[in-house]
């Protein structure tokens, strides 16, 4: 019984701590996404194609309709009138800020090396409001960038590749022209793909480099409640008539992966609880077999079937009570301990410690799993005990 109790304690504890770790990394991942590509991206304008429908009313009048043909939707690349779109979406309650961005491919040339990348033309203040760019800067500062019309902010991986640092200048080529820029700051997001390729420059500089005098490539939007982004995106799509990509949809496969990992961890750890449940089941069954005479005698005194099964269910309740309480405490301790463990990591996100994030839900799920399993494990022996016919038992034991 003590073994089963220990099993439940560890099962519940591990359940809570593994879920906390996965949630921690998921949270970090989401934070990283929101800090780089933002909550919602407004991309291409939707051009509905209309289908002409001629119909006649019952009176015989002819009426004509235009019906938007969803399947034949077309997209016009970019946002032609960012100001109008931003003005209309700022009306939405959950929208915090919006930053128009112009994007294009570039080649970079340092004195020693060449590299290719993506340029993001931004309005500094707008973009700081929709991303964590300011915090991601490692060398130099946003102030330096703001002061330099031909300044750029470069990812640390790209800087390493090109072997350049803050203050040095570099030649950037796009379309059919090239200009010289100064590296005002170097950033690190932790996402290698971004740190390797993305270069920020002022909107005006990007416009002339890319020869795009009007419009922007996309608008990056930040929101107050990130969980509401899906609905906001839907609203924006309707209000602004542009294709929108909320972070949940952009990173769908990653979110799915986290979900799957959490589920599989939950199942794996639950087996500890299940095994303890089995142990408990067999222990209780042995007790029932061992105590048939006592059960029969209690029955002969007027104790009911429920009285008997309650005795055994109580054992389950006691194990559950201590198992879940101690398990939750253990889970909290492990979670805390893990969060102190150094664990440097970068690639899809950057971190120095194990990431954990506990929610009440992890505890609830662990407790529910333990309750279900222990109840099943004690119910069967309890029912077995209750079904014993006292006459049979006593006949079997008397002379």
């Amino acid at each position, binding site marked *: 019984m003590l073994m089963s109790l220990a099993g439940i304690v560890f099962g519940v504890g591990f359940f809570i701590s593994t879920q906390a770790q996965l949630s921690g990394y998921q949270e970090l991942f989401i934070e990283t996404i929101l800090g780089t590509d933002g909550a919602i991206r407004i991309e291409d304008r939707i051009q509905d194609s209309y289908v002409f429908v001629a119909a006649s009313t019952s009176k015989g009048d002819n009426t004509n309709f235009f019906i938007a043909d969803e399947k034949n939707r077309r997209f016009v690349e970019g946002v032609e009138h960012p100001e109008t779109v931003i003005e209309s979406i700022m009306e939405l309650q959950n929208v915090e800020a919006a930053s128009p961005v112009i994007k294009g491919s570039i080649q970079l040339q340092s004195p020693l090396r060449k590299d290719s990348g993506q340029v993001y033309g931004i309005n500094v203040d707008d973009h700081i409001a929709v991303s964590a760019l300011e915090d991601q800067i490692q060398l130099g500062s946003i102030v330096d960038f703001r002061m330099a019309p031909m300044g750029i902010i470069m990812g640390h991986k790209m800087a390493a590749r090109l072997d350049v640092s803050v203050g040095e200048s570099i030649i950037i080529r796009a379309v059919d022209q090239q200009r010289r820029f100064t590296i005002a700051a170097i950033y690190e997001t932790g996402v290698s793909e971004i740190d390797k390729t993305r270069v920020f420059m002022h909107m005006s500089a990007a416009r002339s480099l890319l020869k795009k005098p009007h419009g922007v490539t996309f608008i990056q939007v930040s929101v107050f409640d990130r969980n509401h982004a899906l609905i906001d995106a839907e609203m924006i799509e309707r209000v602004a008539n542009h294709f929108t990509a909320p972070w949940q949809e952009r990173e769908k496969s990653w979110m799915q992966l986290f979900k799957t990992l959490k589920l599989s961890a939950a199942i794996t750890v639950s087996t500890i609880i299940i095994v303890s449940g089995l142990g408990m089941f067999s222990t209780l069954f042995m007790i029932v077999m061992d105590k048939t005479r*006592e059960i029969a005698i209690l029955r*002969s*005194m*007027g104790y009911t079937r429920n009285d008997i099964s309650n005795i055994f269910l109580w054992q389950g309740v006691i194990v559950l009570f201590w198992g879940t309480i101690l398990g939750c405490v253990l889970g909290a301790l492990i979670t805390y301990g893990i969060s102190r463990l150094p664990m440097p990591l970068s690639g899809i996100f950057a971190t120095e410690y194990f990431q954990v994030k506990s929610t009440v839900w992890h505890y609830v799920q662990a407790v529910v799993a333990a309750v279900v399993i222990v109840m099943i494990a004690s119910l069967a022996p309890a029912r077995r005990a209750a079904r014993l016919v006292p*006459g049979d038992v006593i*006949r079997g034991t008397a002379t």
Partner: protein
Amino acid sequence: MESNSERIALECRDLHKHLGEGEMRVHVLRGVNLKLYRGEVSAIVGPSGCGKSTLLYLLGLLDRQDSGQILVRGEEVPADQDEAHTRVRGEHIGFVFQFHFLLPEFSAAENVMLPMRKLGRLSEKEMEARACSLLSDVGLGEKTHRLPSQLSGGEQQRVAIARSLANLPSVLLADEPTGNLDVKNSLMVFDSLTQLAKEKGQAVLIVTHNPDLADKCDRILRMQDGQFID
């Protein structure tokens, strides 16, 4: 004077019972009729295997008859209702088995209190007082707090008798209560059983192989092949 029918504590009519399965199925009880009166001690005697214990378990509602009726204080107890069986058992029937079946974890007094606890009519204090008085009635007033393992076989059996009387049952059924005891202890247990019953006006039915004890009873019922003879 009470009328005859009011004196009947337990009655059975045409009881039949089979035991075993398939080829092994035996017709153990073949139509048993019996009336037990208050304040009367009856003995059942008969060869081993004739069905005495089987009858006692049926009368004690610990088992189900295949056919026939059992009436406790004039009311029929349906064979197929476990709840009714359990309730009547707790309230009106006391059982003493050949083996004492005391719960080893509990003291003598606590064992005697178990049936009272279930019935729930007395307070903790009253139950304790009652357990002590019942135990001193069987000569164990000094040993109420001993565990069963600290008592002799005869003493254990007397605790079991005290326990069977805990809820003042109308019927006391005893299956070879002295079977495991020596002559002296047998007499002592038998005396406490019958004397208490007489004092408290209970119907007592004892199964015994001891002819001396049977002779001391008010009535002897002889059983053979699942029936009473003569």
